[in-house]
C-alpha cells in the first residue's frame, strides 16, 4: 500500500507560541480518517500546513512530492469561500473552480448538486450555514483529487444536511483517494472512519484503526477519544 501523505518532524510556531511540535504522520491511500481534537488543538493548522498555505519546519510529502507549492494540485480542501463577494451566485463560483482546477469535474458537480439539493442560482450571501456547507462539500468533492481535507464540515448544521453530506462522502470519494475529516464531535461520523488521528498536546497523540479501538478496548470511538482527555486531567 502506498502513502498519500508523509509528515516528518513537523514543527509550527505562531507568534513564538508552539502550535505543533515534531509531528510524524503517515496516511495510506484509500482511507477515510477522522482528525479529532479540541478547538484550538491545531487541526486546522495541520491542514493548512499540508496544503502549503502555512509553512513550518520539517517535511511534508503529498503523493511523494515534498515541494509545498505542488501540494494544492493533489489536494481538494474545503475552503470557506471568503474570497467571493456575498452577491456571487453559486454557479459563478463553480465556473471559477472549473477554470482554476483542471481536475474539477462538471458532471460530478451536477450530480452532487442534485443529491445535496442545492439551487445554484442562489447567491452566497443568502445561504444558511447548512446550505453553505453543502455548497463547499459539492465544490470540494467535484474535484478528482488524491487527498481530500474536510475541515469541520458538520459544525452547526442540522442533522438532515449532515446525513446527506455523509452519504455524499461515501458515494463520491474516489476509491484510491484518502479523505481527512476534522471534527471535535465524533459520534455521527464514527461508522464511516477507517482510522482516527487525535491531535493533542502539540502533536499526534494517537493514530489507530477505528475497528481496532472497538476490538481492543470494547468502547466506541467517542468514548475512547474522551478517555484520552480524562486521563490527562490532574487529580491533586
Amino acid at each position, binding site marked *: 500500500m502506498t502513502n498519500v501523505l508523509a509528515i516528518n518532524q513537523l514543527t509550527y510556531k505562531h507568534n513564538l507560541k508552539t502550535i505543533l511540535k515534531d509531528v510524524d504522520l503517515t496516511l495510506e491511500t*484509500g482511507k477515510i480518517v477522522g482528525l479529532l481534537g479540541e478547538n484550538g488543538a491545531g487541526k486546522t493548522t495541520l491542514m493548512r500546513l499540508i496544503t502549503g498555505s502555512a509553512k513550518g519546519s520539517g517535511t511534508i510529502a503529498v503523493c511523494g512530492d515534498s515541494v509545498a507549492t505542488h501540494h494544492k494540485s493533489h489536494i481538494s480542501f474545503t475552503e470557506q469561500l471568503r474570497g467571493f463577494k456575498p452577491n456571487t451566485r453559486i454557479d459563478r463560483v463553480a465556473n471559477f473552480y472549473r477554470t482554476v482546477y483542471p481536475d474539477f469535474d462538471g458532471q460530478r458537480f451536477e450530480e452532487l448538486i442534485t443529491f445535496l439539493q442545492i439551487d445554484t442560482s442562489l447567491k452566497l450571501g443568502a445561504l444558511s450555514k447548512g446550505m453553505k456547507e453543502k455548497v463547499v462539500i459539492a465544490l470540494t468533492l467535484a474535484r478528482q483529487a488524491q487527498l481530500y481535507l474536510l475541515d469541520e464540515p458538520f459544525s452547526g448544521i442540522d442533522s438532515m444536511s449532515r446525513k446527506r453530506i455523509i*452519504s455524499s462522502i461515501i458515494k463520491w470519494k474516489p476509491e484510491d483517494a484518502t479523505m481527512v475529516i476534522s471534527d471535535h464531535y465524533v459520534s455521527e461520523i464514527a*461508522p464511516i472512519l477507517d482510522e482516527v488521528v487525535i491531535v493533542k498536546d502539540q502533536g499526534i497523540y494517537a493514530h489507530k484503526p477505528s*475497528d481496532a479501538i*472497538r476490538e481492543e478496548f470494547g468502547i*466506541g470511538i467517542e468514548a475512547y477519544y474522551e478517555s484520552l482527555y480524562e486521563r490527562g486531567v490532574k487529580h491533586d
Partner: protein
Amino acid sequence: MKFDDKVPIYYQIKNYLYHEMMTGALKPGDKLPAVRQLAVDLTVNVNTVQRALGEMITEGILESQRGKGNFVTMDEQRITQLKEQLVMEQLERVYEQLHALNLTDEQIIASLKQYIAQRGQRDDQRVSD
C-alpha cells in the same frame, strides 16, 4: 442502519447480512448489491464493507464471481450450518449470563420452559385482545 459504536463495524455488517439471509430477504444464489451501494445503504465505509464481505467469502457464505459481484452461496448445508451457529451464539450468551447468576443447568432449563410457557400465554392474550 443504526450501529453500536462499541462493536467493530465489520462484525455488525456481517451480522446484518446473516440476518437478511436467515429471514429470507437474501436467498441462496441472490446477488448482493455492489460494495459502494451497500456502504451507502448502511452509511458505512467502503473498506469496512469489503472486509465484512471478504470474511464471509472465506467462510463460504458468499461466493465472489469475477466481474459479476458477490452471491449468497447455493450450498444449503452451509446455510443450515450458519443458522445453527447463530442460534448457538445466542444460547451461549443466555447460558453464560444465567450461569453467572448461580443457576444450575436444571434450573436454567426449568426457567427457560417457564419463560416460554408464560411468554406463549402473553402472546396468545395479545392476539385475542
